[in-house]
């Protein structure tokens, strides 16, 4: 009798557990855009020698050691070898107390340039900025994204989240309508993904060029006939924070290759 009781309560617990899992509102595990790509595109990314993004990584490597600006410094003067950047970008965007807002990696690079090197800031989509952000992020390749949304970052995360769920443009769609509701489903010839930022900057075959995450945001916004924001704007940086947190745990692939 005792034994039967045990079995009954164990079964009850299992049932309850299954019910809890079934009722959980959490999304299924999110996958990198890589997992939605064709085998040809994946193969191009898998081999650093066939990945066209590495043309910009080479630019970044050169810039890392190049002295620029009135202070007579290069990145290397302060940071030493590039390998010291391993893991650094997995926690970006990061709250900065001087700016009182979030810094994406590009903001931090330009801050180093203007404050430490006394050099001119780079344009967001310049080959130098793409190359430098690609090579720094590449040091964390394979490491899981791990941004914090606690403390000072919390209100910026909330703004990014609000942006993500707000309908906009003539087509009146929010980011979530494609990237939460229909990942894996075809929109014309394209397969919608979870819309994660772990591969940026990405070499997009459509662009024939490496491009930033904020460039991609502008493309998405224009596609739905919404007014795009500037690259590096607070709106897009907060959105980047929301997306990166959504992708926490997903491995860095920069520079990735996408269709």
């Amino acid at each position: 009798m005792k034994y039967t009781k045990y079995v009954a309560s164990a079964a009850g617990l299992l049932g309850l557990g299954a019910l809890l899992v079934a009722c959980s509102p959490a999304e299924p595990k999110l996958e990198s855009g890589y997992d939605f790509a064709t085998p040809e595109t994946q193969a191009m990314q898998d081999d650093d020698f066939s990945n066209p993004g590495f043309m910009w990584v080479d630019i970044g490597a050169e810039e890392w050691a190049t002295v620029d600006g009135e202070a007579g410094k290069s990145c290397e003067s302060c940071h030493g070898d590039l390998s010291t950047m391993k893991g650094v970008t997995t926690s970006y965007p990061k709250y900065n107390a001087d700016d009182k807002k979030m810094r994406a990696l590009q903001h931090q690079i330009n801050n180093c340039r203007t404050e430490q090197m006394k050099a001119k800031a780079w344009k967001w989509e310049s080959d130098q900025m793409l190359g430098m952000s690609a090579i720094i992020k590449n040091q964390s390749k394979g490491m899981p994204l791990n941004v914090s949304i606690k403390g000072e970052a919390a209100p910026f995360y909330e703004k990014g989240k609000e942006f993500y769920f707000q309908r906009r443009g003539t087509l009146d769609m929010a980011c979530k309508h494609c990237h939460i509701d229909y990942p894996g489903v075809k929109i014309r010839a394209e397969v919608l993904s979870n819309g994660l930022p772990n591969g940026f900057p990405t070499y997009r075959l459509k662009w024939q060029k490496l491009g930033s995450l904020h460039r991609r945001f502008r493309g998405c916004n224009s596609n739905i006939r919404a007014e795009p924001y500037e690259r590096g704007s607070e709106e897009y940086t907060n959105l980047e924070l929301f997306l990166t947190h959504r992708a926490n745990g997903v491995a860095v692939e920069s520079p990735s290759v996408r269709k």
Partner: protein
Amino acid sequence: MTYRTILSTLVGAVLCGALITSANASEYMIVDGTIPASLTGKPGDPDAGKQTAIHRQKGNCLACHVMPVPEEQFHGEIGPDLSDVGSNYSEAELRLRLVDPKALNPDTIMPAFLKVPTSEVHKKFKGKTILSAQEVEDIVAYLMTLKGSYSQ
């Protein structure tokens, strides 16, 4: 813009129901999940409707729907297959689904083709609906001809 005058007269003659007016767009009335009255008073042209439906800057229906249009490649799969849509829905039901699908499902991804959007619209498209009232009527007429099955 004569259709609007005609429409106003038509709508004015009806005593009950929800009357919707949006700036620069048509007036129409929703009754039980349908828009029973033509938006223009002029019959839709199914041939013109097919062209508008396929056009990437207009209906762009193939972005999300499979349709019996073999001459176009890569049909999207977000919405339902439209191959038999003319058997499954009435003209009045289809009209509301094109004009304002959010009246039926507030969370839908499907755009409203005859409502002036208000949120962060690109400066090139401010104040504009995606389609005109006659283009909606044409697409409705085209969709009503789709009765049967089709495989890509």
